[in-house]
């Protein structure tokens, strides 16, 4: 068990050293992060993706073009909605959170709190004796 926890721990540290963050680590959380970025108000796709990058201090540095499909998937799921507008002669698609999206975000936050508390508690036990 201890060996397993240590192994898990070393893997997590390994993952944290490799920056930018590995996409598979981010995959399960990307939807919640996008919803969180849209919570304060409507934004166009590029601004959402930039907020993801800058809000994470550059840790979540995914190729911008590959994040748009995630926005489209969230829209199809009814968690966000979009409107086309014309800004400075350019057609622009602005996204906003729906009521279902707001509820999903709340749920994801609660889940993350629970999960991160559990993982933090486990990973903190680094003073265990080496032979258990």
């Amino acid at each position, binding site marked *: 068990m201890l060996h397993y926890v240590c192994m898990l721990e070393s893997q997590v540290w390994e993952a944290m050293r490799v920056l930018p963050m590995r996409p598979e680590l981010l995959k399960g959380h990307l939807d919640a992060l996008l919803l969180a970025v849209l919570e304060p108000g409507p934004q*166009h*796709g*590029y*601004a959402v*993706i930039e907020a993801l990058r800058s809000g994470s201090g550059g840790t979540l540095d995914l*190729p*911008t*073009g*590959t*994040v*748009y*499909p995630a926005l*489209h*998937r969230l829209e*199809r799921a009814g968690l966000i909605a979009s409107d086309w507008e014309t800004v400075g002669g*350019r*057609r*622009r*698609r602005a996204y906003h959170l729906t009521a279902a999206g707001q509820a999903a975000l709340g749920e994801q936050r609660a889940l993350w709190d629970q999960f991160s508390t559990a993982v933090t508690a486990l990973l903190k036990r680094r003073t265990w004796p080496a032979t258990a």
Partner: protein
Amino acid sequence: MASDRLATSTGTRPQDALAAYLSDLAARLHGPRGHCGAILTELRDGLEQATEDRVATGLAPDRAAAAAITQFGSPCAVADAFAGELTTAYARRTIAWFIATGPLVGIWWLLLVHPSP
């Protein structure tokens, strides 16, 4: 000023670089035409915004466009990321088409095959 720009120029006009990137991507997107068009319009806006943001920090326009393109990812990677969504869109459209035309085909079939009294 112009010579300064030329000194750090990539030799490609920024609009041309963005257009080439988008046309490469367009060739790799497979799905309903309207859907692909909307994706390209949205990404063009994003690329132009990314370029403008970099120009505002003092980068030459062609360098800014090249950096924006790098940031967006290779057309191949972007098309791959969109593949799932486009397949879903295509499937939904096909199913809608069958639902819409099915009864009509059925009626014709009945009219043609039904033995006259």
